[in-house]
């Protein structure tokens, strides 16, 4: 079977990354912002896997596992913080959580 060309994989990763990026910038709900950041992280992970496949090394996949682990840690802290914010503000609108200005 023919291999998927590296460029195609990278373009897919790039598109995912851009989608995540746009979505972080335009979403106002904190949970959706968190999801969008996760999409960006996974896009980077995909790019690592593609690169690892290109060089037929395991490094890319190792890096992907690290990224998954770190994203999980980040989400757990993030969700805990979001719970706290919801308790205080009764909303998840990121504009409401904007008391500091200047």
């Amino acid at each position: 079977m023919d291999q998927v060309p590296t460029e195609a994989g990278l373009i897919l990763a790039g598109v995912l990354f851009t989608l995540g990026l746009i979505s972080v910038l335009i979403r106002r709900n904190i949970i959706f912002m968190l999801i969008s950041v996760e999409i960006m992280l996974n896009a980077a992970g995909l790019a690592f896997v593609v690169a690892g496949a290109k060089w037929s090394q395991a490094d890319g996949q190792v890096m992907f596992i690290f990224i998954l682990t770190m994203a999980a840690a980040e989400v757990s802290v993030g969700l805990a913080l979001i719970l706290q914010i919801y308790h205080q503000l009764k909303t998840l609108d990121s504009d409401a959580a904007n008391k500091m200005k200047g």
Partner: protein
Amino acid sequence: MSKTDFLSVVPLFILTSAAILILFSIAVKRDHKVIYVITTVSLAIDFIFLVWYKATATWVIEPLFIFDGFGTFNTGLILLTALAVTMISYAYFEQREERKEEYYILLILATLGAIVLVISKHFVSLFLGLEILSVSLYSMIAYLRKRARSDEAGIKYLILAAFSSAFLLFGMALVYTAVGTMEFSKIASHLSSLEAMPVIVFAGFGLMTVGIGFKLGVVPFHMWAADVYEGAPAPVTAFIATVSKGGMMALLVRFFTAIDGYQYHGLILIFTIIAIASMFIGNFLALRQGNVKRVLAYSSIAHLGYLLVAFLAGGTLGIEAVSFYLVAYFITSTGAFGILATLSDRDRDAELLDDYRGLFWTRPWTATMFTSMLLSLAGIPLTAGFIGKFYLVAAGVREHLWLLVVMLAVNSAIGLYYYIKIIATMMEKNEVERPASNELNPSVYVVSGVTMAILTILLIWIGVHPNGMMVLIHELLALD
């Protein structure tokens, strides 16, 4: 694993075991004092070990870590700063939070992350160190759960830090796609075999710059700095301002030197623009602030801009200047936020300019120490800040970076204004009698007071006799 391998990583082992020890000790009994002592002792032992185990040559653990003079120097600096932050934290958290013990685990882990960052020579260890540092910081920033603004600061930092990590990772992936290795030195040798830098590598470095710039808090990636500084507890702010930013700076210096980024004009241009923008925007935004924490946040943006001048100059003198400036900046920032922490009361941090009105008449010693910290940040002679700035200018002049040097001088003058404004406020007579806040037993404050005094003495000592520190840095960097 050889014996030297083992001895080199002992500083990391001590920190991880201290974190586990604290975890167990909390399970047995929650005692703030015990946890505090464990933290202090393990950080101190770690530092003593580092000094005792004088590495005579650079040691490399393939493929992840490198233990050279620069790494050892930064490790020591990070450990001492973490120690100072621990000292400040005790009095601060004693009166504010019921569950204060876990904070020390996070502090130790964040220190560990920063140390991994400064000794890494591979993308994997870089990423690992950075994330240990960041994930600990998210929870440290939001540690005081009852304060409204700490959650906001925490979630802001989390989203932006994860966002910037994604940029950094995507950049790394692009570089890896092009060169097929993640080790700094091998990337360098691969790149030098090519005639021009491939577009994909340049794009990768560009994305990595975004990620690194966020962590350093330089313009245009500085939006988080002021809010996070304001919302985080004062000791945590001290930690972010020093260890987190300094660790990233050391990594940047190592990476850039390894790949010899000085030959790529595109990268140099990008960093020059970032440096100039950071100096100006940081200083101008600081001018119109009435909140001391925010002033310090914007001033730290400007200081990172100053540091980039020496970084761009490069060479031995440039790296020495960066190291020296980091020492001066670490001492002053920890000191300034430490004093802010001691002045804070139970409900909020002493962050408004009004909290400092007439401080010279009510608490003359604290005010004197704060003044010397601010003067050092401004770069007034007889303080470490002055020598540091002098070093930066010397490094810049040697490489004929006239534009950057002139910008540095102009900005130091602008910066003077807002530091003097705080000092002038402290001199004013305070007519309104402030109600005495119900404070703890003053003995709790002795430790932070002594730490502040030591930092002040160090500040002036290095300012008057910079030779010792210069020789130390020079010898460590000459290690091969």
